[in-house]
């Protein structure tokens, strides 16, 4: 590729080995996956292949005409619209330098209507887009025509998409494109992960639609950093360190010192709320940095995000406080310093973030951790161990989610229509749906076309219709517009736009949060303190508040559970502590706390299950520490609570974290007689299913499913009146379905997703078997131990009860104004518990 070599030379770059390997594979017609911890060079590895191919087909430069740009050849899928413009710019560089007559544009939720209009008439040569916008393109009756000359599909940050429903949506879109263009290459760009072969398969599909031939692809490793350094900020005294909570602001000075180590830095936090808190704290401490520091998370409006991204690229910002919103992409703007506030909860995630620092190829990458409570030091020590042993999490794709499929059916019905048999075959070439049964497909089709079983006698319902020519299509304009508008919804909790009464949009916040505000209440968003005025027309209207303090909005999408790989490593560290071995700075820092735990109770060994029992003014507490991560604990807690409540009428509230769970009840639990059988792995599926009926998990999971399957619609064409009439919470729909259509497969999907993704039922099974095979230690303690404390003050609680509702109610009292709980900036300590 002489032209390409020249271009690289002109930039004083030398192509990496993996880039040459990619170009060769592409020339051989292959698809593949490029994986590495850093972003260095992945983009150009595939992009130059596509440019080179076109140049080879059009060697005569005189035929290159700006007036006749080539039609759509490359589709570049990126998970975040925030990344689209950066990607666009990177792709344009060589196009401009080589004077290629290519048009490179993006198409996302941010794209203006002018550009959209232009693209309707003519698509660019290379289109950068998100999974949602790709679906929208497929929901166009000219879709097949539009993609007739497609040569290359790139999915960027595939590790990020793959195990989410947006990844499933992408898989279905790719299956469609692969059917239309079997010769197009598919290339994925990804971080390192534990299941690369599955990642490749999820990208290229199982088999070719027309021939049934098994697809092949190559795995290519990209540029890895020479070494990775993980260190942490350790306070001089740990005793006064907050046990748990949002703040690690004790470390603020040290974090600022770390920021000052370089010219540019990224401060990663785990939740949007933390981002807002830290940004404010840094700004308060360093007011002279105003304008040089920024915050970035997915709930901010486009203008704010772009300002930050530009600032980073131009080196104008010295510090950006962000969430995983900046985990991805931007391999064009490495920073000097990377700080991780709180535990990263996974090895892969930390490595990815570390890879954002110092992008000189072959240089060392470094991250400085600032934990927000004592036990996070344990996790950091464990992460370092795991990383050095190459242990990285696998990211499994979701198995055949029917809500995504039902959305896709409507998309395809809009995009030219489909024949049922053919679409079934096509969908099965997507890895996620390789095991889709005909029955499941028929159910989904029936649900979408006829409303499913519950509505069989119902002629009024019509989403897609079967035409005389045997194709399913959408024949209703309002339906078409509604569907297109809902594809554009980012999957997540219902959010409302927040806007100044006489002015600009600020961003988004959760509807649940906004709905509880009274006029005059203050909250923080986007670094500004705002005063709530009202909610109207599906927007929250605010004015700038004068006072400094506000409530930080709570986003449910916040806390990540710790990965099982990391919990393994944590337990190994605890074993070391039991043996008196404290081998790292982090472990030495928390030594006093672990010794206190040993004194008041015990540090469980890897094969022990520790249970602590304590009575406080709040009630009777049972603390159980399986160390299996929050998801497994939710399931185990529900299970144990259910089994106990079957033997005696009792009500528990449950709180859960990554180390264990708490069952709190007004009455004592006669647990001694119930051990160890209450932890038996026998009858797990049944018992869990029953406990699910009493818990909120399935209902919460249904929220997402309802939105994806089009049961809950957030934005309507035709204005507010129709919107008001069609507002129903997913919780209400869940109740109606449970009562009147209990066989509905979407309900089953809710249960299944809770089992598999929320409760990790396989992991739960293994954990129970391990408990039964090991020792259970039951300690009666006089006060909550260091392990117990974080659970004690955990805010989010669920309830499990076998008491009759009326009996429960008689013991409860009305929550008067002052007791209604608002999310505060600093959680209150339960001093009564000490």
């Amino acid at each position, binding site marked *: 590729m002489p032209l390409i070599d020249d271009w690289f030379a002109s930039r004083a770059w030398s192509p990496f080995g993996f880039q040459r390997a990619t170009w060769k594979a592409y020339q051989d017609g292959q698809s593949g996956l490029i994986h590495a911890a850093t972003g260095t060079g992945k983009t150009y590895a595939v992009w130059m292949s596509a440019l080179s191919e076109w140049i080879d087909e059009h060697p005569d430069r005189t035929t290159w005409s700006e007036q006749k740009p080539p039609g759509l050849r490359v589709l570049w899928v990126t998970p975040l619209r925030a990344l689209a413009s950066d990607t666009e710019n990177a792709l344009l560089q060589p196009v401009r330098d080589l004077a290629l007559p290519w048009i490179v544009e993006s198409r996302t939720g941010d794209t203006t209507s002018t550009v959209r209009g232009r693209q309707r008439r003519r698509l660019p040569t290379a289109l950068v887009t998100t999974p949602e916008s790709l679906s929208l393109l497929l929901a166009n009756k000219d879709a097949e025509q539009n993609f007739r000359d497609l040569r290359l599909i790139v999915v960027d940050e595939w590790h990020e998409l793959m195990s989410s429903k947006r990844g499933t949506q992408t898989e279905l879109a790719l299956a469609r494109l692969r059917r239309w263009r079997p010769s197009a290459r598919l290339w994925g760009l990804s971080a390192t992960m534990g299941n690369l072969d599955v990642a490749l398969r999820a990208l290229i599909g199982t088999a070719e639609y027309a021939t049934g031939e098994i697809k092949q692809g190559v795995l290519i490793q990209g540029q890895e950093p020479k070494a990775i350094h993980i260190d942490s900020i350790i306070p001089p005294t740990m005793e006064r360190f907050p046990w748990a909570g949002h703040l690690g602001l004790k470390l603020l000075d040290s974090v600022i010192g770390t920021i000052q180590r370089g010219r540019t830095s990224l401060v990663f936090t785990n939740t949007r709320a933390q981002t807002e808190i830290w940004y404010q704290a840094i700004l308060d401490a360093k007011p002279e940095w105003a304008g040089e520091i920024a915050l970035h998370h997915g709930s901010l409006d486009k203008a704010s995000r772009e300002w930050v991204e530009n600032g980073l690229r131009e080196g104008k910002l010295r510090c950006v406080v962000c969430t995983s919103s900046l985990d991805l992409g931007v391999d064009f703007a490495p920073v000097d310093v990377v700080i991780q506030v709180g535990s990263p909860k996974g090895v892969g995630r930390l490595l990815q973030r570390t890879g954002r620092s110092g992008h000189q190829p072959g240089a060392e990458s470094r991250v400085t951790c600032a934990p927000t409570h004592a036990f996070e030091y344990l996790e950091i020590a464990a992460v370092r161990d795991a990383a050095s042993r190459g242990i990285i999490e696998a990211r499994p794709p979701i198995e055949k989610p029917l809500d995504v499929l039902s959305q896709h059916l409507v998309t395809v019905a809009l995009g030219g229509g489909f024949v049922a048999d053919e679409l079934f075959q096509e969908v099965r070439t997507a890895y996620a749906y390789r095991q889709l049964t005909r029955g499941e497909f028929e159910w989904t089709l029936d*649900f979408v076309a006829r*409303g*499913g079983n*519950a*509505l069989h*006698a*119902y002629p*009024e*319902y*019509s*989403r897609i219709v079967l035409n005389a020519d045997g194709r399913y299509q959408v024949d*209703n304009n*309002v*339906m078409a517009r*509604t569907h297109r508008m809902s594809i554009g919804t980012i999957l997540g909790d219902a959010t409302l736009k927040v806007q100044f009464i006489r002015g600009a949009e600020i961003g988004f916040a959760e509807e649940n949060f906004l709905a509880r505000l009274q006029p005059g209440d203050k909250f923080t968003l986007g670094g500004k303190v705002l005063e709530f005025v009202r909610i109207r027309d599906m927007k929250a209207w605010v004015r700038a508040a004068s006072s400094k303090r506000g409530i930080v909005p709570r986003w449910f999408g916040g806390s990540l559970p710790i990965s099982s790989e990391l919990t393994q490593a944590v337990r190994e560290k605890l074993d070391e502590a039991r043996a008196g071995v404290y081998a790292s700075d982090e472990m030495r820092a928390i030594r006093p706390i672990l010794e206190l735990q040993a004194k008041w109770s015990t540090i469980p060994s890897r094969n022990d299950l520790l249970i602590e029992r304590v009575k406080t003014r*709040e*009630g009777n507490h049972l603390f159980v520490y399986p160390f299996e991560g929050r998801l497994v604990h939710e399931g185990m807690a529900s299970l144990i609570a259910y089994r106990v409540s079957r033997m005696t009428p009792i*009500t*528990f*509230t449950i709180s859960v974290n990554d180390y264990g769970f708490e069952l*709190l*009840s*007004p009455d004592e639990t006669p647990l001694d007689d119930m051990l160890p059988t209450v932890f038996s792995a026998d009858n797990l599926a049944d018992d869990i299913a029953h406990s699910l009926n009493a818990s909120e998990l399935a209902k919460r999971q249904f929220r997402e499913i309802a939105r994806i399957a*089009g*049961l*809950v*619609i957030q934005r309507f064409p035709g204005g507010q*009146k*129709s919107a008001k*009439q*069609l507002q*129903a*919470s997913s*919780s*209400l*729909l869940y109740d*109606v*379905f449970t*009562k*009147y*259509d209990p066989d*509905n497969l979407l309900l089953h999907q809710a249960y299944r997703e809770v089992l598999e993704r929320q409760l990790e039922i396989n992991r739960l099974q293994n954990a129970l078997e391990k408990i039964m095979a090991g020792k259970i230690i039951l300690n009666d303690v006089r006060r909550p131990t260091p392990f117990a404390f974080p659970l004690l003050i955990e805010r989010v*609680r669920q*309830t499990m009860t076998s008491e*009759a*509702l*009326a009996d*429960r*109610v*008689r*013991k*409860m*009292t*009305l*929550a*008067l*104004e002052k*007791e*209604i709980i608002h999310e505060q900036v600093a959680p209150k300590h339960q001093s009564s518990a000490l």
Partner: protein
Amino acid sequence: MSIPMVTSIANEPVHLYAQRGLYVPRLGVLLITDTHWGKASTFRRAAIPVPTGDLAGDLARLDTLIAATHPRRLIVLGDLVHAARGYEPMMLGEIGAWRTRNADLPITLVRGNHDTHAGDPPRDWDIDVYDAPYLLPPFVLMHYPARHEAGYVLSGHLHPAVQLVGKGRQKLKLPCFWIQRDHTVLPAFGSFISHMTVTARESDRVYVIADQDVIAV
């Protein structure tokens, strides 16, 4: 058998039913509010596949209330029908059949916001429709909760529920009758309805509905 909570409002004895009705024995009047008939079919018309069955369940519950109270009149405090788009053959059939079963019962509707949009109910439902306020001494009947100088107000519209707290950090949200100094808000009758949490004051009386029981809190 439904056993009501017996209490008094504005010195008038009333019966509060877990089936979400309020009966005034001296006047022989049964009051319900916010039935939102046709809400599920409105959704189905918009291609959201809500299963059928909730309307039949609601009408059966209304029959239970009527059987327990034998009222001389049924009054609906607004939002009888959810939307004009909710009228369709199945819904009309179910309600028509119900009305025939209760053909001798006079029914009055005090208009609510949804009724204003949807228009008056079909003639053959035989319902007398009035605008608020509707005077029924000692009460003033309205859809929206407000004070009225002519008397004590009974209203709907809010779909009220309250938050209960208990030992061990329990929380529970339940629909309720919210009795304040000069007005009372009845719980929403319809089942396919979201309830809104209201904050009661110490001087209010709140009766929550817990399955088959009405309990004072």
